[in-house]
């Protein structure tokens, strides 16, 4: 009963936050509401027994997307106020689509096809990790994950074409010292999330997003001035996840006993996955940071 009440409140809050984020006239308010919506969505995923998604949503949906929206707002020349659509036509359209979707979702069988989960549990001991989500992401369907890393890199490459006019203001001493205090903690948490991914919810994307949030905070406080795409080492870090992934795949293709693309031998699978995930974490963190902060111009700190 208590949980049902909680679910009902959560569902209402999620819908309310989504609505207010869309209809808010002030863009800053809209972004804040959107971040709150992200946190509530993370809770909703947790309630739906999908802790991996909850972690990713909390780190990316609530955290980094918010930072991305705020840096985009700062780049706007003048305060923009969004015009709220008054026409009823789009609302009717959305309502119609929602109704059709709800109707079809209703028909999804309550108990999913057991063949796949059985297959996963049979193959799990050979995958090198104990957590099925990590096994799917980095072993059974690692090709998808490789391409997803490429999508992230492409987002950065695309965003670089747009001129950035972000100015970093001289650090406020309190936020500066706070960001410095925060960074060891974030590195520790990142390592923990990454390591935990082998056996429980966690892994490269969540850890990378967390590390990126730490880097973004430091960068916005005018720290880490070397963090720029022009720096070849930074480029290497941003590409390292993909490079290691592809090279490991090539190694498995050319020199392993089975000679299959992206096939990890059972004995080494755990180590291979941890290696790929570590570099992927680094790459994701650097890419997301560059995506949020770009190549800012800095204002000199006055004492």
């Amino acid at each position, binding site marked *: 009963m208590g949980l049902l009440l909680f679910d009902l409140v959560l569902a209402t809050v999620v819908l309310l936050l989504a609505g207010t984020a869309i209809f808010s006239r002030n863009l800053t308010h809209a972004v804040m509401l959107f971040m709150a919506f992200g946190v509530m969505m993370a809770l909703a995923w947790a309630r739906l027994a999908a802790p991996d998604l909850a972690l990713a949503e909390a780190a990316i949906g609530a955290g980094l997307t918010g930072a991305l929206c705020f840096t985009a707002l700062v780049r706007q020349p003048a305060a923009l106020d969004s015009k709220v659509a008054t026409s009823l036509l789009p609302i009717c359209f959305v309502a119609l689509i929602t109704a059709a979707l709800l109707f079809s979702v209703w028909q999804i069988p309550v108990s999913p096809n057991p063949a796949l989960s059985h297959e*996963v549990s049979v193959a799990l001991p050979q995958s090198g990790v104990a957590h099925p989500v990590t096994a799917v992401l980095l072993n059974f369907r690692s090709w998808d994950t490789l391409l997803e890393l490429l999508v992230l890199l492409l987002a950065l490459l695309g965003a670089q074409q747009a001129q950035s006019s972000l100015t970093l203001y001289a650090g406020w001493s309190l936020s500066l010292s706070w960001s410095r205090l925060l960074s060891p903690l974030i590195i520790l948490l990142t390592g923990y999330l990454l390591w935990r991914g082998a056996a429980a919810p966690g892994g490269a994307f969540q850890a990378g997003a967390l590390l990126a949030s730490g880097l973004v905070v430091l960068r916005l406080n005018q720290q880490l001035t070397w963090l720029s795409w022009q720096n070849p080492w930074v480029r290497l870090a941003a590409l390292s996840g*993909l490079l290691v992934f592809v090279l490991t795949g090539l190694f498995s293709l050319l020199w392993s006993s089975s000679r299959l693309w992206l096939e990890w031998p059972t004995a080494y699978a755990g180590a291979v996955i941890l290696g790929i995930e570590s570099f992927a974490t680094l790459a994701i963190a650097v890419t997301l940071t560059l995506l949020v902060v770009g190549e800012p111009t800095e204002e000199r700190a006055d004492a």
Partner: protein
Amino acid sequence: MSLALGLVIIPLLAALLMLLWPRLARGLQLAAALLCTILATMLLQLVQQEGSQQLFIGGWNPLLAIRWQADSVTALLLLLSAVLHLLVSGYALAVQQRDKLAAAFWPLSSLLLASLQALWLSRDLFNLYVCLELLGMVAVALVTLSGDKAMRPALHYLLFSLFASLCYLLGVALLYGAYGALDLPLLQGQLQANSLTAAALVLITLGLMLKAAWWPLHLWLPAAHAAAPAPVSALLSALVVKGPLFILVLVWTTLAPAAFLNVAAYAFLVCALGALLLAGVAALRTPYSKTLVAYSTVAQLGYAMLALALMLSFNLPVFTAALWLFVMAHALAKAACFLSIGEMQQTLGVKKVAQLKGASQTMPLAMFAFAVAGGSLIGLPPSGGFLAKWVMLLGLWQAQQYFLLLVLLVATLVSAAYIFRVVVLAFDRAEPTAPDFSPQLLPQWLALLPALAVWAMAFFSMPLLAILQQELS
């Protein structure tokens, strides 16, 4: 399958190295493009000799793994994209200094090739989504290379493309929830004709139609393709819109339950007629030369739609052959059109169709390339376009669809009208637009190459048809 793997990994690795060492970019690009073309030729031969090849990535069983399959259509498409990539890279190398082509072009175009090859090979609904997403991102990034003026069309493209991806993903999620598998051959024949499947298929189809710029969901295409630099427009129009088309054909020929085929065929037919006639008229009316070529892409995609609709309703092998012939002929012809128009725009310093006056005198080679490619778009013999249209006419005759025969004739006249609109102006030599600088020969020859290739398709019609028929038997 190691050949197919090479086709994906080589451009991918090359692009990563280009990002690391921008100085090596041009050499790497050319080397990767050449290597890919050779590998694709070898793969086509292999598939012809030994039949279609399969690979389960990572060696897991079909339910867990992602399936790659290289059948003869896939092998042809792999070769087509490798060849076009090579030709466009050559053109880009020849003009990069003059046109101030951004350095990001090299890694991005290599990534475009990698994601396309991955898409042609994949037979997994979710992996296809990732490939689509990748393709969309690369395409948008490539459009932005034109600088500030391209930002608006690129942003529109991005938003449409993301919305389309989400539609597709939602459809796939519904199917996955209902059937618990993502592998296309495993799902074949499993789908029941209920409203869940219908909703999923509608979502998938809408998403893909939006991505493939099928009329009436084509609104983002003309602006985006016209704003991009010439080599990019060539790649986008020739290859990128074919990716979603390929998935659409896969979904409707392998997944869809038989009960839905007729309705879908009617819907596709209406869209095809709209594209062929209305987009053709739009191409006839637009004042800008690049927009004309972009609208012609929308119109020409109508033939592919028509072939798909006929495939679904008549189940005749000729229509499958016609569809892929159209795809190949259009890709080569459109690349030649965009490259030659781009070359004329740069040299003459003009944007409007009317200002191409006298181009047959000032830039005869580029104009010749445009005319030859245009001939294929119209369907004049001897060309790949003629071959495709002929195969389709034969099929229509077999199926006794005389009304569609008439429509095809009208559509041909419309495409002839917009091609001749340019060609006639180019032969009006009274007061030719003077070039800004003396026309360069090499880029014009490179623009002519795809046009000659589409010409050559007519001479290889028997082997091409044999390859495509092999697929069907």
